[in-house]
Structures are given as structure tokens and as C-alpha cells.
């Protein structure tokens, strides 16, 4: 009896310890400085610049990811070609790549002395240490999150519905817009939310490839690091902003299944493998 009690107590202790460990640092951000002071710190030049840079670069990179990633994912999901598994694995590679490696890789490709550096030079374009570099870095590390989920949700579509659309006179493009996109929207939204979260938090690749110039390439994440030794309270305030943004995105991901209505139609997803 006592041994059983002890075990139950041990389980509860472990759970409380884990939760406390994960939440304490987040709570500390808000407790160290009064909320009013925290809000005031956000008015500082550094904070405003960082927020504006983050907003702009995040918006551009998310737009790029959605515009290029969605059709690319659709193609990969709906065609059966040789080396398909390899392509999907390559798409996932940046997910596990250390950020420092992503940074050095981007420099090697787009930097002044990099693979395409000469081409950009000839065109009079400098990429590294500009806002373009921030966008590239964020897009590079965040897009695999979107691509992976987008491919999975397009793959999960009932292909019979796409076939039905074709026999009803819709070409491939109309079928994509009217059938595939709405039916995959739940997965696409979840993918977009994850890539957004990853993009906002991006640090390693950006600082190596784009540097940390206030008002140009210094995003909120970079500003937190830069302000650590200068104005700790500014760093805290920016940290608080990111905690709230991240929490909002997480909430969004959790709520997505509820706000898109069930898309299941005909009885089984295996219908298309039915009688030949």
C-alpha cells in the first residue's frame, strides 16, 4: 500500500517539476519588471526598429513561402516520380540542420565570395548583411516546416475528388484552386503557423548571414541578444512580446481543427484504392 502511494507521489512530483521548470523562465520575464515599465521599454528606438524589421521580413518571407511552397508541395504530393522520397528527405534536411550551418551555407551560396556572389555583383546586388539576407535566412529555415505539412495535406486528399473535378470540365488549375486548396486548407494553415513561429524565432542563420544592424537586419530575436549587455529591460520587454506572439501562434494551431469544418466526405479515404 505504502509503496503504491509513494509511486503516485513520485509521479506527481515529476509532473510538477517538469511544468515548473518549463514555465518558470517565462513567468520570470513578466515578474522581474512591472508590466507598465515593460510596455514603456517597447517605445525605445531599438525595440521599435526591431519590431518593424521583424514584421517586414516575416511578412515577405511568409508570402514567399506560401506563394512558392504551395504549388511546389502540390506537385510533389500529386506526382509519382523516381526519387520522390529523396526529394521529400531533402526538403526536410534544413529542419535538422544546425542554424550555424544554415548561416554559413547561405553565405557560401549568396555571400559576396559565394557561389552566386559573382552573379549578384555583376547585377550590382549585394545580398549579405542586408534586409534581403534576413528574408533569405528566415525563408530558408522556416519553409521546410510549411512544405512538409503542405505535402502531407495534399497527399491526404481524396484523389477521386480531383478526378471528379476534371470530369466536370475543370482543368488542372481550376481543380487546384477550387478543390485541392480548400480541402487541404487545414493542413496548410497549420504548416503556415509553424513556419511563422520558426521564422520569428530565427536567430543563428540570420546573425551569420545578415548581421545585426539596428533598423536594417536586427530582428526582435537579434535585438534581445544585442540588448542583453546594454539595456536588460529592453531585452526583457522584447522577450515578453515574443512569448505572447508564440503563445498566440500555438493557440492558433490548436484551434485550427475547430475552425475548419470536417472535410471528410465519402466514406473511406481508401475508396480510391477500391475496385479497379
Amino acid at each position, binding site marked *: 500500500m505504502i509503496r503504491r502511494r509513494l509511486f503516485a507521489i513520485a509521479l506527481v512530483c515529476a509532473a510538477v517539476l517538469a511544468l515548473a521548470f518549463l514555465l518558470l523562465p517565462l513567468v520570470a520575464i513578466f515578474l522581474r519588471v512591472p508590466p507598465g515599465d515593460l510596455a514603456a521599454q517597447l517605445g525605445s528606438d531599438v525595440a521599435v526598429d526591431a519590431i518593424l524589421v521583424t514584421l517586414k521580413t516575416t511578412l515577405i518571407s511568409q508570402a514567399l513561402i506560401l506563394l512558392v511552397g504551395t504549388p511546389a508541395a502540390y506537385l510533389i504530393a500529386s506526382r509519382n516520380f523516381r526519387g520522390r522520397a529523396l526529394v521529400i528527405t531533402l526538403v526536410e534536411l534544413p529542419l535538422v540542420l544546425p542554424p550555424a550551418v544554415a548561416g554559413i551555407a547561405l553565405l557560401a551560396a549568396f555571400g559576396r565570395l559565394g557561389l552566386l556572389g559573382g552573379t549578384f555583383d555583376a547585377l550590382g546586388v549585394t545580398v549579405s548583411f542586408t534586409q534581403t539576407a534576413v528574408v533569405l535566412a528566415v525563408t530558408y529555415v522556416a519553409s521546410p516546416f510549411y512544405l512538409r505539412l503542405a505535402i502531407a495535406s495534399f497527399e491526404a486528399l*481524396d484523389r*477521386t*475528388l480531383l*478526378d*471528379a*473535378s*476534371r*470530369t*466536370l*470540365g*475543370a*482543368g488542372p488549375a481550376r481543380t487546384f484552386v*477550387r*478543390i485541392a486548396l*480548400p*480541402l487541404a486548407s487545414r493542413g496548410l494553415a497549420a504548416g503556415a503557423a509553424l513556419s511563422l513561429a520558426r521564422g520569428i524565432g530565427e536567430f543563428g542563420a540570420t546573425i551569420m548571414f545578415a548581421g545585426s544592424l539596428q533598423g536594417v537586419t536586427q530582428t526582435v530575436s537579434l535585438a534581445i541578444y544585442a540588448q542583453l549587455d546594454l539595456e536588460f529591460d529592453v531585452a526583457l520587454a522584447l522577450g515578453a512580446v515574443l512569448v505572447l506572439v508564440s503563445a498566440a501562434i500555438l493557440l492558433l494551431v490548436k484551434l485550427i481543427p475547430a475552425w475548419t*469544418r*470536417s*472535410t*471528410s*466526405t*465519402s*466514406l473511406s479515404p481508401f*475508396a480510391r484504392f*477500391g*475496385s*479497379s
Partner: protein
Amino acid sequence: MDTLDLDIALTLRSFRLELALRVGRETFALVGPSGAGKTSVLRLVAGLVRPERGRIALDGSVLFDASVGIDRPPEERRVGFVFQEYALFPHMSVEQNVGYAGGTNVPEVLERFHIAPLAKARPAELSGGERQRVGLARALARDPGVLLLDEPMSALDTHTRAGVRAELKSILDRLELPVLLVTHDFQDAAVLADRVGVLVDGRLLQVGTPAELVAAPRDPFVGSFTGANILSGRARPGPDGLTAVSVADGSVLYSVDRAEGLVHVAVYPWEVSIAREAPDDSALNHVRAPITSLVRVGNRARIQVGALVAEVTTASVERLDLEEGEVVVASFKAAATRLVTRNPS
């Protein structure tokens, strides 16, 4: 015109689909076991699968011709396709589904198929029969040159099946189009179709009216598929111009058909009567065996006696007080049998 012509070949997983078919202004049913290539035929006509060789034409216009490299995409083929389980777009209302093809008069089509009150409903809210009507309305809204139906009854439960089948029959009868439908159920085919083709392993074994297939199956598979009992035996000339067939259990059956050597004897369950003792009537064939199963279906009962299935009224079952395990005599006339010669295997 109004004809669908196809002559195609396509290699599927375990066999080669090869068939030539002309469907006029009629309902043609392709029947066969699952995996016989039936659905592939529909997908070929719709342009969702490309044949390896051959030609498909509708009303004289070529949809596919391998020899001259014509392969028109599905959206240009004027084909109405009702998919198995209907494939209605789940995120659209009934009205939007039917209007998807861009037909001119959606309200009229909804009216014609008695789904106008459901116009705003989503597919998930519909019953099986309603879904089928929406699927048909959607396929026909674009005024196609041919209607393709893939297992139209398979998504329905047994209770609604008969009613929906009758409804579908009356819709098909009013269409002035070639209709090609696929089913694994001969009964559905017999009710719905003017002509039936039996497709097995990619080949048409026999084409005819449902009555022709029932009356004269050219192949044991066709026989068993139409629901006949199939008994194997060896035939030799018998008395009175009849053919005597010795079957596996040693008994001898008589048939009015003429054949010699290895044969299948086909007899329909409703031609077999059941009695406690061999009756003294015109039936020449008597099989004495215990009842191995007795299943009631509505007002009929299917009784398995030895290798035979008999179909009798439940009233007769009550009157004779039949139960599983009891020894009875199953009888049928020599004139009720069909002999199909078989190759020694």
C-alpha cells in the same frame, strides 16, 4: 449518333485489360468480380487513365487514338462520371456541387432530380439515396455525351438499396444517352441494364441481355455469377434423348441440353423445390441430403442442400417445418438445367 466506341488495351497489375465495345443509346452494364478491371474501363473512357493502345470515340469524335496520338484531357471529353460513393465535394453545398460544371440551369436540374429542397445542404448531411441523386445531377448538369456509373449501389445499405435502384432505373430509362455502368452485383445489372457484359480478368466473357445470360450462360463463371448453382460432372447420352450427367457425389442428373464429356450443370435456385420425400411429379432430378443452412430473406428462404441452393417461400418452410440438419430431397426438372462444357483441368 449517340454511341460510345471503344477498343482498348491496358496492362493492369495482374492481367491485361483488353476489350472492344460499342454502347448505343442504352444502358450497358459491365459486371464481374472485384479487381476484374471494370472501373479501369470507366476511367479510360473519362480520360483519367491512358490506354496503351486503342481508340475511344464518342458520337464519332475521337477522344483517344493511340495510332495518331490523340488523347483529350478529361475536362474536354463531355463525359458524365458518377463515382463510387459519389465523390461529392464536401466543402460545397448541393447547389454548388451541381453548379460546379458550369451548367446553365442549375435550379431546373435540382428540380428534375428532386433535390431542390436540399440545395443548401452539405453532402455530409445527405442520405445515401440523396447523395446518389446529387451525384447524378452533377454528372448530367453539363449535358454529357455519355454517362458512366461506378458501382452506383455499393455505398447504400441493404434497406435503401431496392428503392434507390428503382429510382435510378427510372432516371436511366428517361436518359437518351449511352450509359456505361459497372457493378459486381448481377441483380443490379439485371434490373438497370439493357445489355450486360461479364468482365473477368480484363476480358469480356459474354455479352447479352440479362435474360440471355441467365438462360444460356456460355461459361461456368457467367452461370455462377448470375446466381445459378453449378455442379461439375461427366455427361453421356441418356434415355429418352436426355443427357445423363454423373456428378461428384455419385448421383446422376438429367438434362435436356445435349453434351458429352466434362460439363458444368447450371440450375437456378428458384427452379429447385424441396420436399421431405422424393415427389412423384415431372421432376427427374432428385438430390437427397441434409440441410446445411437455411437463411430467410424477406418472404423467401435460401436452403443449402448438399451442393445445391434452393430458393423457396418462407411459407413452404413453415408448412414443411424445415430445419437445419434435416435430410430432405431437392428436386428440379431436366428442362430447368443448362449444360456448359468445360475443358479438362
